[in-house]
């Protein structure tokens, strides 16, 4: 009978037992095992063997770990500890190598994970809805710009049941206050939606019911759906809230349902608290004269039937539009198309998507450079180590021992690097989240993606092992004599390796140049943006949204005669007076330098009212931006008065003389060299032009300059209003006192947002600033790493040729000549890298063209500047080690020989 002892137990024991004892110990066990098999049977014998192994483990390990124990030096365990100690020692002996390698690894895992996490959250991850691939948004396109849809179109799509399971729409979210004693309570976010929205999204309420189409008419609209968060916070998750009343400003609503946790709509807005039914009045479909309402502010989404493709849905939309255009040609003055796009695309937008992918590409590029450089570093090190390994092999170290040492070294390096990388990932994701443009889809849910983090750490460790094993295999191959010879002096076989390293440096430069070009383009673009004058001084200005409470009435109709004045409802006139009163009171506050009011066209808000401008013989109802302002407005915003005068107090009062201020653009457009002052024009009635003010960009630096007219607020009425205040110091400190003034003057006015225009401006440029910062960062990193690569290769070459240089200098070569020769040698490396890089940059630039502001993607100046920078830093990296070579003392060099 030939029964063998349990293999695993035997292997374990063989591993932990000192090699000196291994033979006899295993022999003893085998002998006794055999006798026990024949005496007690196999099972009992195996059990006995296992027990022996188990009980032998502790004493064996304890003995081996004891210092001074004879067996300790030969144990693989102790060996690992010693390998680790040796590795730490070796890495500490080459601090610059270690530092660079760790930095590169840390950056690779950290930055790579951070950027990928962001892009994954925003772009890659699907929508959290059932069958989200069948959800589409229907976007209107008028005058080449994306817009919402008109009520009529929505109704037509909903009635047509050929391609969609369900069609729904919503208004933009607004805010509403609860009627409570607590005035400080936060305003609730609410969105009006049509009943089918929940069918489109495929979402059921957790309790109660959703809306029905019956709720879409005025009489039945007083119902509300709660979000899970609101229900938990305000009602303690009480299931009996269904049927209860919720008192909101503007009326009481019955709670009909509670949506499930995590649900919100619109998906790209902050989480909503409430949803109310959207009322589609019959008269919303057309105005009184039967004209189609062109109010296109609806966001329409639909669920495709499972058998219908996006293309089929699109062609049906086109068909419907064609029918409508044939029946009502007067509704399509300029023509337009409706496009069905996947909901995800509609939310994230192709621009953001490309931007994110560009970002990912840039990070990938930097990572690639980092890896190439790392390979280069290790290659250089392997050459240096070949000598040392050769000596150790000659002294009797086995190939396994050498390989193990190298492996432990690389793994240690990889572990430290990725450890730092994990920290970098967490820090930079938080940093990025703060820098991202506001309103970015799912920006709140951006967090370090643990899967990605693990993957990058795993990749780094695997790469580390692969890189570590390579020199272990080539380096420990027992070409001892060769290694000794080559390490001793610059042998011929290192030429191949040198060529490889030069190639890697060229690759690094080729990769780095496009990033530096990108950084340059974004920098120029941002500088352009910042150099643009918005037209007003928005620093230290606070804007309070004070929308008056107006009794609902018919919308004022534009009179047919442009010279006739607009009818002003008493409500609107009172609102204007209130706003002027608030400005007067605000002016008295300490810290306020000046205060004024404006209805629409607040700088940087992007919100504007268009009206008609008539100048007999020149323009008939031409579009012009109209703002009603109090007389202090130009001074408060430092809108320069170029000619003429501002409103007098009498003109800024009800019944005052009708006057108007025009901006330069309006004068250039309509007066063409004639004197505008004193001219009679028609803007909401006949008016006299009394002054000319500067141009202002209402949507921030990127918006265009348009003709503008400023009308005195006191003699008009307003439907919206902003109180604007210039402060001496920090504007937000005045938040409290200003809110108090608003409540005192108009207790029923909606207290809206209070923002400092400085903040508004920084939000406006946030995206461009982020692009610029990130690309600047990537460019600098790429260039720095590439320069380190150049430096490494040159200094290695110099080291190799020290003796040769010494001999030549002894024979009369001047240091200058040596320097020139080395620089000349590397000039072609730099040249090749930069040329290839410029070609790559030129062909890649079109991807970022969309993100540049007034800088062409192929701006030759930027390319030239970047080439200069790259060549100069490359030369600098060459110069440092080359100078060392030129300073070689011939005596020292020759003595080494």
């Amino acid at each position, binding site marked *: 009978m030939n029964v063998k002892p349990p293999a695993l137990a035997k292997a374990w024991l063989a591993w932990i037992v000192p090699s000196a004892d291994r033979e006899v110990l295993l022999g003893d066990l085998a002998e006794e095992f055999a006798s026990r098999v024949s005496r007690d049977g196999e099972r009992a014998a195996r059990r006995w063997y296992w027990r022996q192994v188990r*009980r032998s483990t502790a004493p064996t390990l304890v003995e081996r770990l004891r210092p001074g124990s004879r067996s300790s030096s030969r144990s693989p365990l102790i060996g690992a500890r010693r390998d680790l100690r040796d590795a730490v020692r070796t890495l500490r002996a080459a601090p610059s190598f270690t530092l660079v390698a760790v930095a590169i690894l840390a950056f690779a895992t950290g930055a790579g994970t951070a950027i990928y996490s962001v892009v994954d959250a925003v772009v890659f991850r699907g929508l959290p809805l059932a069958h989200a691939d069948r959800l589409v948004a229907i976007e209107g396109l008028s005058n080449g710009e994306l817009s919402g849809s008109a009520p009529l179109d929505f109704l037509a799509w909903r009635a047509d049941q050929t391609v969609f399971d369900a069609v729904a729409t919503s208004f933009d979210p607004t805010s509403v206050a609860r009627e409570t004693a607590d005035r400080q309570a936060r305003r609730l976010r609410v969105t009006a939606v049509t009943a089918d929205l929940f069918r489109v999204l495929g979402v059921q309420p957790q309790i109660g019911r959703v809306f029905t189409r019956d709720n879409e008419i005025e009489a039945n609209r007083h119902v509300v759906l709660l979000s899970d968060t609101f229900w938990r916070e305000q009602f303690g998750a009480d299931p009996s809230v269904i049927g209860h009343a919720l008192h909101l400003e503007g009326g009481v609503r019955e709670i009909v349902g509670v949506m499930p946790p995590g649900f919100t709509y619109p998906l790209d807005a902050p989480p909503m608290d409430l949803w109310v039914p959207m009322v589609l009045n019959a008269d919303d479909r057309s105005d009184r004269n039967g004209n189609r309402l062109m109010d296109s502010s609806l966001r329409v989404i639909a669920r495709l039937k499972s058998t219908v493709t996006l293309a089929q849905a699109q062609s049906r939309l086109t068909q419907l539009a064609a029918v409508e255009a044939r029946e009502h040609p007067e509704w399509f003055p300029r023509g337009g198309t409706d496009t069905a796009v996947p909901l995800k695309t509609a939310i994230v937008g192709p621009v953001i998507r490309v931007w994110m992918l560009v970002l990912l590409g840039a990070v990938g590029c930097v990572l690639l450079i980092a890896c190439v450089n790392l390979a280069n570093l290790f290659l250089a090190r392997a050459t240096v180590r070949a000598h040392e390994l050769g000596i150790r092999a000659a002294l009797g170290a086995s190939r396994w021992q050498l390989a193990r040492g190298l492996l432990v070294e690389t793994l240690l390096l990889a572990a430290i690097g990725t450890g730092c990388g994990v920290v970098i990932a967490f820090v930079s994701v938080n940093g990025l989240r703060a820098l991202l443009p506001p309103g970015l889809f799912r920006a709140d849910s951006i967090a370090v993606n643990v899967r990605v983090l693990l993957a990058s750490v795993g990749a780094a460790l695997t790469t580390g092992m692969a890189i570590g094993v390579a020199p272990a295999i080539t380096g420990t191959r027992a070409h001892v004599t060769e290694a000794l010879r080559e390490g001793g002096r610059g042998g011929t076989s290192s030429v191949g390796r040198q060529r490889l390293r030069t190639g890697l440096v060229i690759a690094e430069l080729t990769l780095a140049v496009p990033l530096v070009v990108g950084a340059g383009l974004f920098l120029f673009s941002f500088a352009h943006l910042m150099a643009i004058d918005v037209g007003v001084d928005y620093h230290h200005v606070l804007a309070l949204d004070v929308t008056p409470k107006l009794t609902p009435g018919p919308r004022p109709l534009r009179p047919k005669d442009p010279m006739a004045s607009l009818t002003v409802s008493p409500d609107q006139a009172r609102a204007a007076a209130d706003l002027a009163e608030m400005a007067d009171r605000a002016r008295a506050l300490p810290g306020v330098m000046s205060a004024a009011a404006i209805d629409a066209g607040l700088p940087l808000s992007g919100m504007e009212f268009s009206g008609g401008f008539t100048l007999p013989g020149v323009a008939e109802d031409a579009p012009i931006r109209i703002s009603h302002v109090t007389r202090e407005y130009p001074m408060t915003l430092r809108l320069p008065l170029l000619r003429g005068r501002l409103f007098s107090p009498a003109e800024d009062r009800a019944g005052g003389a009708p006057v108007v201020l025009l901006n330069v653009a309006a004068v250039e457009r309509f007066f063409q060299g004639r004197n505008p002052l004193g001219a009679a024009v028609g803007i909401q009635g006949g008016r006299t032009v009394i002054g000319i003010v500067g141009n202002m960009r209402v949507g921030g630096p990127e918006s265009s300059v348009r003709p503008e007219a400023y009308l005195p607020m006191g003699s008009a009425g307003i439907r919206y209003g902003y109180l604007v205040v210039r402060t001496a110091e920090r504007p937000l400190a005045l938040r409290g006192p200003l809110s108090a003034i608003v409540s005192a003057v108009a207790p029923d006015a909606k207290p809206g947002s209070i923002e400092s225009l400085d903040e508004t401006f920084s939000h406006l440029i946030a995206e461009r600033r982020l692009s610029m910062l990130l690309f600047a960062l990537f460019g600098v990193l790429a260039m720095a790493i590439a320069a380190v690569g150049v430096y490494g290769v040159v200094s290695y070459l110099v080291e190799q040729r020290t003796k040769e240089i010494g001999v030549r200098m002894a024979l009369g070569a001047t240091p200058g000549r040596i320097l020139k020769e080395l620089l000349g040698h590397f000039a072609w490396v730099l040249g090749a890298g930069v040329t290839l890089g410029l070609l790559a940059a030129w062909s890649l630039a079109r991807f970022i063209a969309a993100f540049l502001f007034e800088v062409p993607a192929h701006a030759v100046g930027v390319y030239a500047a970047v080439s200069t920078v790259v060549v100069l830093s490359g030369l600098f990296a060459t110069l440092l080690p080359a100078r060392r070579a030129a300073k070689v003392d011939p005596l020292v060099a020759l003595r080494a020989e």
Partner: protein
Amino acid sequence: MTAQDALGEFEQALLLAIVHLGEGAYGVAIRQEIEHRTGRDIAVGALYTSLGRLERKGYVRATTSDPTPDRGGRSKRYFTLRPSGVAALKQARVRHDRMWAGLSPDLRRTRS
């Protein structure tokens, strides 16, 4: 001999087993001898670490035999006592006896 070098109980058992076994004192035999006499089942790991320690102290001499086929072709290690080992055992016995002197086996004092 200092107190630190005093033999532990397990070491005494090992040395005594070697004496009992004479020529044939190798791992399996020592293990079985101790088990036979005291009922203690000793782990081979503990056996060899202790014997290694005794060898380093110079109490025992180890010699390795030629490989034998009945053990899967592995060799045996035979142990014999060195003079210092003998002395240490005797010393242990003397200390042991001195502590027991004046006591009966059931721990009654036989003289004060």
